[in-house]
């Protein structure tokens, strides 16, 4: 941002004066042209311009983003129900700390981070196969992308039917002699089921990014590897992955964001946070406390915690991306 030189702090005050002066002059002189102004005033206006130009953006950010954020944090230190509006200190945060449901939801965020490599590896591998022109790669390219255009609610409803205890998936399992699996009713499995469905529904986007990355890949390296007789595994490990570092990092970051911010719809439709509260995520917890339990202040506290978590994750991601940028 071209703000100019030395003393930015005094400038807004002066700019106010300059404004008032100009207005006065205009009032006196009537329709006299601006070119008649002294040069010093013109220079001042020049220095003022950046502030004025960024003002709308700053105001929108401050008024519609930061100020509500401050209000939300402020609200999280007040009580619920009969204590509505009265300050209660950190008791909402202490309650969160003691609530096993909230701890589960944070734990599930950790689980998502752990599952991230799998969520990135799947589109990566599939994109590799498409790039290496396995038979039918054109068909796969569109088929893989297709679920990405479905809304989570539709995806959730489809998989609810598929994965129901008496649903078709268990029927197939039963036909081959494997016992039925309670996909959405077993607390040890349900979270993995939902994450699996989420990956299924969204990996198309990452696949496209990978394919774009592949288009920048130096084909002569692959040819060289082939001539040297490298196996598929070695080609992937030694040629493809090193050349795609930036793409992989980018997909990591976007997949992470997707997992942390857009699982609500699926959870809402598929498990409702259950069974036994095992599929809660902070977002779902916040919605539950605010809408179902009538605890808006507690929900604000949970939102604040989630905000801090996302801030940390976001900063880490930015530093990862920066480092990737420097490498090139």
């Amino acid at each position: 941002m071209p703000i100019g030189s030395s003393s930015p702090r005094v400038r807004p005050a002066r700019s106010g004066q300059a404004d008032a002066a100009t207005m006065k002059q205009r009032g006196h002189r009537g329709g006299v042209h601006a070119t008649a102004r002294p040069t010093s005033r013109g220079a001042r206006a020049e220095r003022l311009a950046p502030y004025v130009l960024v003002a709308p953006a700053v105001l929108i950010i401050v008024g519609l983003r930061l100020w509500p954020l401050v209000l939300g944090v402020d609200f999280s230190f007040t009580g619920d129900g009969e204590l509505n509006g009265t300050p209660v200190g950190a008791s909402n945060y202490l309650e969160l700390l003691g609530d096993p449901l909230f701890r589960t939801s944070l734990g599930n965020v950790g689980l998502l981070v752990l599952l991230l490599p799998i969520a990135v590896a799947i589109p990566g591998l599939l994109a590799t196969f498409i790039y290496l022109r396995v038979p039918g790669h054109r068909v796969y390219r569109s088929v893989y992308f297709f679920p990405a255009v479905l809304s989570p609610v539709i995806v959730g409803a489809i998989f609810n039917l598929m994965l129901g205890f008496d649903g078709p998936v268990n029927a197939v399992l039963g036909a081959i002699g494997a016992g039925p699996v309670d996909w959405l009713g077993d607390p040890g499995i349900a979270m993995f089921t939902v994450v699996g469905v989420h990956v299924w529904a969204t990996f198309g986007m990452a696949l496209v990014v990978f394919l774009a990355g592949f288009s920048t890949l130096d084909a002569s390296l692959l040819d060289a590897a082939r001539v040297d007789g490298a196996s598929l595994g070695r080609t992937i490990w030694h040629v493809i992955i090193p050349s795609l570092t930036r793409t992989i990092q980018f997909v990591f970051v976007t997949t992470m964001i997707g997992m942390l911010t857009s699982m609500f719809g699926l959870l809402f439709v598929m498990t409702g946070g259950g069974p036994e509260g095992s599929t809660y995520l902070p977002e779902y917890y916040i919605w539950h406390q605010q809408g179902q339990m009538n605890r808006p202040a507690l929900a604000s506290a949970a939102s604040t915690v989630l905000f801090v978590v996302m801030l940390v994750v976001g900063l880490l991601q930015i530093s990862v991306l920066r480092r990737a940028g420097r490498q090139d």
Partner: protein
Amino acid sequence: MKQRALWSVLLAAGLAVAGCGSAARTESPSGGGSPQKQKLVVWDWKSGEPAAAAYVEKAKADFAQRHPDVTVEFVAQPFDQYYTLLGTAIQSNKGPDVMLFNGGGQIRDRVNALVPLDPYVTEDKSRLAGWDAFGKDGKTYAVPVTLQGHPIYYNKTLYEKAGLDPAKPPKTWDEFVGDCATIKKATGAACFALGNKEGFGIQFFMSGLGSGILTPQEYDDWIAGKRDWTSPHVKRIFELWKEANDKGLNNEGANSTAMFNDIFRVFETNKATHIIGLMSDVGHWKDFAEFLPPDKIGVMPAPVVTGGATPSLPYDGGIGYAVAKWTRDPKLAADLVRSLTSTDALTAFYAKAGAIASDTTIDVSQAGPAVAAIVPEIKTGKPALHVALSSKTLDLMGRLSQQLLSGSATVDKAVRQLADSDRTS
């Protein structure tokens, strides 16, 4: 450009001034001035349904007769988001004048935002039933529209197929389990259709069977708020819940089957013999009758589990209209609530939407044996056990019930946690 700078400064100042003050205002804004034409806004999740059209029409007509100069606007909200939206309205002290509530925890948690209606509805007290669910600390906050309860429905066809007499359903728990085994052998149908994905199954179970487990004294104490969680009978409710599942009385996958509305399909398709259902809205006599012959749907009292228990129909006010405290003229809004609960309107609601209306004077003789079995029980019926619990405790109970079914919690641990939660809320 200069002017724009000025505007920016003005805008910033305006924002700063408007933003001042605490996050949640607790005072109620009083509407000044006399409006030319008054308008009342009603929030609910019913009025948009075709089945409720006749009801809304009748209620509007009744109100228009008494207050021709007032317009009434119905805003149908999606039920999924209803309490979230209402929460926002309450937080800002602005919103509908009249709103629909579920009885029990949902309204009790929000009475701070409501006007006590006792002075306005004295005439209706004896005509309507189900008031308790809308009261707190001796005050009434909403007028019941429907009654909601948990009768045990059973499939008479399956009883017949197993060689049992459907006119004589089992009276005790042991007989009940015995009959279930016979039916299972003959037809393969499970004893209970149980959907506990949302954690609602335990609520239905507790209330549907509770009157056969607790003694009348314990039952009344429970409703009155003196809940003895250390009583062996209270513990028996949860033991029975676990036992029923361990003995294979429930359909498989109860924890992943949704109560709304997957489990009702299980009952309707003859895959289970009994279901603890509802009286109004969904999962009731009218719903089931679309799939099963109406004369083959029976309703039985809770089987007696402990000696000395007297089974009764568990029911409460189901949904009811309340008046917001920020409304300009509470009397006018209360009048609208009275129109919404007039006999004419409620008759339309009962007939079209499939609900046991709160009005005890409605004639239900045409509706089939299930309704004929339910309605006479209303006089001796008692409030449902789970409705007396706070929504926080119910939420916990839902999760614990899933743990009991999967075996990851013991009955003792569950009862202890529930007792703690009940004490603090």
